[in-house]
Structure formats: C-alpha cells, structure tokens
C-alpha cells in the first residue's frame, strides 16, 4: 500500500472523521490518498485557519483535532495554531508535508525545518525518515496528543516517503514509549492529607481551570465543590466546569475577574487549585498573591506544580481520578460545614458591594456588556460560543453564564486574535446540532476573514456576532489607562464594510446599531439558514472593568 494511503488508514483507525487543511506540493500524495478515503476534508483558506479549526473541533468535542499543511509556508502558517494548542493544552495532531528526502538541507523550494521551528511549542514531534514508521507514528501521535496533559503533536512526512510502498499493519494498544508514562492516579496519602487540611480550613476557595474540562471531570469537580458550601472560582479556560449562576459561584478570577473572586483568593487560608496553572493573569503580582493561603495543587502535569506558586500539598493525577477520592476522603471526616459561615458573610459583603455592572446608555447606543447580555438571552445560555481575544472576550467571560463545559472556546494562554472564526467552524463541524456563535472583535476578525469562504463553501452555518468598536479595544484601553492616552495605531476605522464583506463571501450580512434592535437582530441571525454575520456597533471607547493592572495585586483592582 502507498504510505499516504496507509496514513489515511491509520487516521481512520484513530477514529478521525474530519481533517482541516490545505494541499500543496509536498503533501500531494496525502491529498491524493484523501480523495478516496472516508475522511471529510474541510479546505480552509489559510493554514492558520485549519489549525484553529482543528483546535475548535477538539475543544468542542474532546476528540483529537487534525490539520494538514504542505511544507515551507504551509507549515509555518500552522505555527500560531500549534503555539496556541500547546498553551491551552488542546489535543491536536498536525501533519505537514516535507520536501523530498534528497532535497532536505539544500534550501529546496518550499523547504522549512518545521520540526525545528516548532520544537519549543509541541508536546512532541515526529520526523518520518522511513515510510514504514508512518502507521506507528500516527498511533503514537494520537496517544501522546490525547493523554496526560493534552497538547499538539507534529508529524512531518517527506513527499517521496509518502509515495513509497509499504505493508500496512494497524497499530493498536498502548504504544511502547519508555519516556512517556503520564501519572493519572493521585497518591492516596497526599489526597488524605489534602482532605484533612480542607476539613480544617475556615476560608477555603476552590480554584479550577481548563484541566477540569480536558479531563472531562466537571461532574466530579461539582461534586467536590458541593460536599460543603465551598466558594468556587474558575479561570477563563475553566468556565462552564462549574455552572453559572450558582450561589457558590464567585465568578471568574484574575485580571478581569470579579472582585469577590479575587478578594476571596486574597483572604483565603486554603486554595484548592484543580487543573489550573497560576498564570500571571491570575496571580497578578506574584509576591502579593494570596498571601494568607496554603495551596493544594492538583494537576496531571507534575511540572505545573510549584512552577509559579509553591504547593504545600501537591497531588499529581488526572482530575477525574483525584477529585472523587478527595471528595470521599473529605466526607469521611464529617467536617462541620458551619465553619464556613463567617467566610460566606465576608464574601457576601464583597458580592453586595462590588457586583459586576456597567452604566447602560441613555440613548440607542449599544454598550458592549449589553451585547453580551443579549447574546445570553437569545441563545438561552445553550450555544457553543467561540471568541477572539480582547475586551469582547473578557466581557463575555464576565457576563455570559456558561452552564456546562465545552461551550466556551477561546484562546486563553497564547491570546491569539483571529482564533474565533476558524474555531467556530471547527466546533460546528464537531457539533453540527448545536448553535455555534463566534463572538468576534473587529480587530481580530479581519485577521482571518478569508475563512468566511470556508464556511460558505462547506455550508457550515456558524453565526458571527461582531462586537465592532472600531478599535483594537483592549490595546486602546491600556493606552488610555497606562500610556497617557497616546493612542498609537489602535484605530480600525470603519473599514471594511462588514455587511458587504460577508455578502461578498456568500454569507448573510446584517448590521445593528440600535440597542432596541439587538435581540431581534441576533434572533434573526440564528433563524436564518447558513452562515450569518451581525455587525454590532458598540460604544467605541468603553473600558473593561474591573481590572487588576499588570503587575499589581488583587487588592489593587481598579474600575
């Protein structure tokens, strides 16, 4: 069998039904094989789009997302998506064509050392030098991408090797990788110590992150949170792991989190971190972060534990394994739940004094926060929302209450503008029966607007709600607050005409400039067949608050 056909067989053996990508010279054999293979290929219009679509697919479904690109520029165009996937631990496999083996190292046409370029941003990579390796490498790639802490794996295949004739034998079972043995089971002694500390804590906070979503452990997480009335906060990656609204829910924490969540972290005596990594957007000034707290840190990646914040009780393991054990160990101690009453009084004060809020306009102007509230109302909290990066992303994290995981798909770690539209395309392919809405920013969307063509050509009915403020809004906010209002290169202006642009790509384009019409516009968009863009003009110079200024502590929140 031709190695390229073996590649497709191996992908099918891993359960792959969809691949995103773009053909080119070096991966022609793969695309020739794909022609008859029972795999649906979604041809994006840029490899970055293919990469983010694969991520959106993975985040929405929990399955491994796959993207193809050719050598050289095709492969380098994937780099942003690969970096995004490693930062947000997205299970993905990227398969690139490489120039013929006799050309490698000669600066051949469309040659780039993509394995070298991506070394720091992959979970692992394989450079094929013998075509017989392909089926086994595919099997190993999927295993590595999807187990332990998930992440991107790259497979680079020289063109001549994918044309070679090999014997195809499916690879099954757990691959033999002597250097890769994720520890999934938590140490029970550590879990017992954690339970005993938690039972003695009077001001605990449970702080969860994207690891809960990756581990499919939201149920287990909720059960732990409810064993007593523990206050719960989540990172931007974890939203949905605990249902919002809820009377134990403090809101998101971190730079644009709620005051209640950040103040609770600040005064906590014990913080239980689950699948979260104490990113600088969470901690603010590290030396003043949660100064009164001891830390229980549960993570499947041992290197995350004590990386930024030293853990008093480290527990390495999969949240799905550790959380139920911690719950039962805790319950066995029969702690007195009333010890938390004082703590809740304190938290309730903050919640009363500092609710999330904004001043609505007195005229027809649409405040951005109002737009998110309208989205929530129209989708009834039941849509899959993807987002770009910036103010709109933070407002959505604040004002849209996510009832369950895998409904909020955004670029948290790398902060990739332009993530939203291709991710929405991937999410819709993965979950065709769900409403998929991309909440876009105008600065972000224009970076990937070629992907309108992908949705149109493949009839992928995503809805884009564009929060159009004519600026790189978050950068403008920083220039206003921290750079003396010297607005350097942040104005987007009124170009493009988004309705015409959408229509040019075969989408339905709509515009909304009146507060009174926003819900109707969104409703119409959801009821209209095919992909639809709603260009919502919002207040141009609104700031996203509250905010911990960069390098400041939770106590110094502004706005």
């Amino acid at each position, binding site marked *: 069998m031709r190695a390229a056909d073996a590649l497709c067989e191996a992908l099918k053996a891993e359960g792959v039904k969809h691949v995103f990508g773009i053909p080119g010279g070096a991966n022609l054999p793969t695309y020739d094989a794909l022609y008859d293979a029972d795999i649906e290929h979604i041809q994006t219009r840029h490899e970055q789009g293919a990469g983010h679509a694969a991520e959106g697919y993975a985040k929405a479904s929990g399955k491994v997302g796959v993207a193809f690109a050719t050598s050289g520029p095709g492969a380098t165009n994937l780099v942003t998506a690969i970096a995004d996937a490693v930062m947000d631990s997205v299970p993905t496999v990227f398969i690139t064509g490489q120039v013929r083996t006799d050309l490698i190292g000669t600066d051949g046409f469309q040659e780039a050392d993509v*394995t*070298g370029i991506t*070394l*720091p941003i992959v*979970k*692992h990579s394989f*450079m094929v*030098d013998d075509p017989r390796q392909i089926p086994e490498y595919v099997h190993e790639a999927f295993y*590595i991408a999807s187990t332990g802490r998930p992440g991107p794996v790259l497979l680079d295949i020289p063109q001549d090797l994918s044309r070679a004739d090999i014997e195809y034998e499916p690879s099954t079972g757990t691959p033999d*990788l*002597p*250097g*890769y043995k994720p520890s999934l089971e938590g140490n029970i002694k550590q879990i017992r*110590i954690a339970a*005993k*500390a938690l*039972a*003695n*804590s*009077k001001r605990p906070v449970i702080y969860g992150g994207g690891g809960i979503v990756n581990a499919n452990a939201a149920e287990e997480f909720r059960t732990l949170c409810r064993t007593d009335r523990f206050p719960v906060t989540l990172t931007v990656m974890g939203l949905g792991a605990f249902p919002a609204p809820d009377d134990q829910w403090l809101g998101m924490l971190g730079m644009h989190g709620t005051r209640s969540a950040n103040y609770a972290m600040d005064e906590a*005596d*014990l913080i239980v971190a689950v699948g979260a990594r104490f990113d600088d957007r969470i901690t603010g000034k590290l030396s003043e972060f949660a100064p009164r707290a*001891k830390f229980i840190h549960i993570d499947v*990646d*041992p*290197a995350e*534990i*004590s*990386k930024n914040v*030293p*853990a*008093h*009780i480290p527990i390495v393991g999969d949240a799905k394994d550790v959380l139920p054990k911690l719950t039962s160990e805790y319950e066995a*101690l*029969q*702690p*007195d739940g009333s*010890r938390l009453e004082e703590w809740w009084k304190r938290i309730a004060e903050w919640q009363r004094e500092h609710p999330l809020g904004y001043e609505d306009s007195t005229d027809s102007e649409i405040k951005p926060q109002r737009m998110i509230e309208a989205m929530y109302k129209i989708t009834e909290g039941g849509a899959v929302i993807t987002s770009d990066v910036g103010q709109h992303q933070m407002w959505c994290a604040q004002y849209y209450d996510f009832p369950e995981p895998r409904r909020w798909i955004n670029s948290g770690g790398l902060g990739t503008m332009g993530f939203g539209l291709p991710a929405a395309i991937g999410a819709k392919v993965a979950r065709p029966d769900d409403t998929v809405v991309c909440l876009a920013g105008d600065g972000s969307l224009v970076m990937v607007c070629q992907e309108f063509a992908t949705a149109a050509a493949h009839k992928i009915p995503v809805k884009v709600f564009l929060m159009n403020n004519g600026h790189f809004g978050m950068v403008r906010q920083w220039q206003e607050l921290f750079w003396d209002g010297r607005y350097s290169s942040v104005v987007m202006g009124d170009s493009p005409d988004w309705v015409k642009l959408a229509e040019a790509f075969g989408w339905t384009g709509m515009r909304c400039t009146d507060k009174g019409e926003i819900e109707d516009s969104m409703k119409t968009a959801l009821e209209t067949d095919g992909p639809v863009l709603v260009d919502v003009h919002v207040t141009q110079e609104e700031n996203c608050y509250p905010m911990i200024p960069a390098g400041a502590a939770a106590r110094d929140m502004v706005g």
Partner: protein
Amino acid sequence: MEAGTPDLIKLEDLQVESGLTGRKHVLSLQVENRPGVLARIAGLFSRRGFNIDTLTVGPTEDPDISRLTMTVDGALHPIDQVTKQLHKLVNVIKIRDMEPDQTIAREMAMFKVTASVESRAEIMQFAEIFRADVIDVSRRTLTVEITGDTGKIDAFERMIRPHGVVEMARTGVVAIGRSRPDA
C-alpha cells in the same frame, strides 16, 4: 469529628521548601538515541531560562539509549522544576539527580602550558602530584592530561595557571552511581 480536632491537618503546620538547594547538581539522563533529542533538551533549557554548566553526551551499554550528563546550579534554578520539565520530553527515559556521596563523578581535561626551561620541572612535578600525564611536548609548551572530579581539576588549574595556560579543554562531568559494597 469536629473541625480542628488533632486528626486534621493544621494549616499553619503546612510548609513549603525553597526550590533552591544552593549546590551544583549532576543530572544523569538516559535518552532515546534519536536525531533531535539533544536539540529538544538544549531548547528546553534556553526557553525556560535554565543554564547548563557542563554537558556531555555519549553511548551506553544499550545502543538505543544515550547517556547525557549535565551539571546545573541548584542555587540559580529549582532542580525539581528542571527535572520535571525534562521529564516532559518524550525521548527522555530516565533522570537521576546524583547524590554527591553516592556518586563517582569524573571529568577529563587537557592543559597546554607554557613551559620554559626553568618552569618545566615544576610543572611536571605538579602533574605527578595530581597524577596527570604529560601527553605532548614542544620547545615552549607541555600538554598535560588530567582526570578527576571537578574540584581536583580546578585545583590543578590554579597551580599551573601562573605558568601561563595557552589552551585548556575540559570534557564536563560524567558520573555513575556507587555500588553498595555488598552488591
């Protein structure tokens, strides 16, 4: 049971250790003998901001496995974090943070020293004391080969440096665990 009973853990008793040990660590890694493994390790050190003091790579008794020995300063970097990051590399099979008193560590060095007629005898005397060998000679220089632990080579260097070191080459440390006497 009530909260605060002795069986529970008192939060104030929970302590963390500083990640810094304040001494040099010899890390002995078994890695898969494949192209690119060294680049992965070197890249990890540079992107995480860890410094490598010395690094040696060589074969082991198993042709599929190479041994990589490195020294890292535990006063600058939490060794625990270094080893955990190294463990994330799929091609790294095993890491040992070698305990100094359980380890035999050696490096080899060659010194090309200016040797005048007057100083030649003294240099050769030092070489003898340090059990080093003279391996090359010219009218103006002597080249000395020495093996030993890092401290011994440092000491030798201090002794001969006043004579004028023209060139020096050191291998970096290789190490192996001590066997128990009864093993």
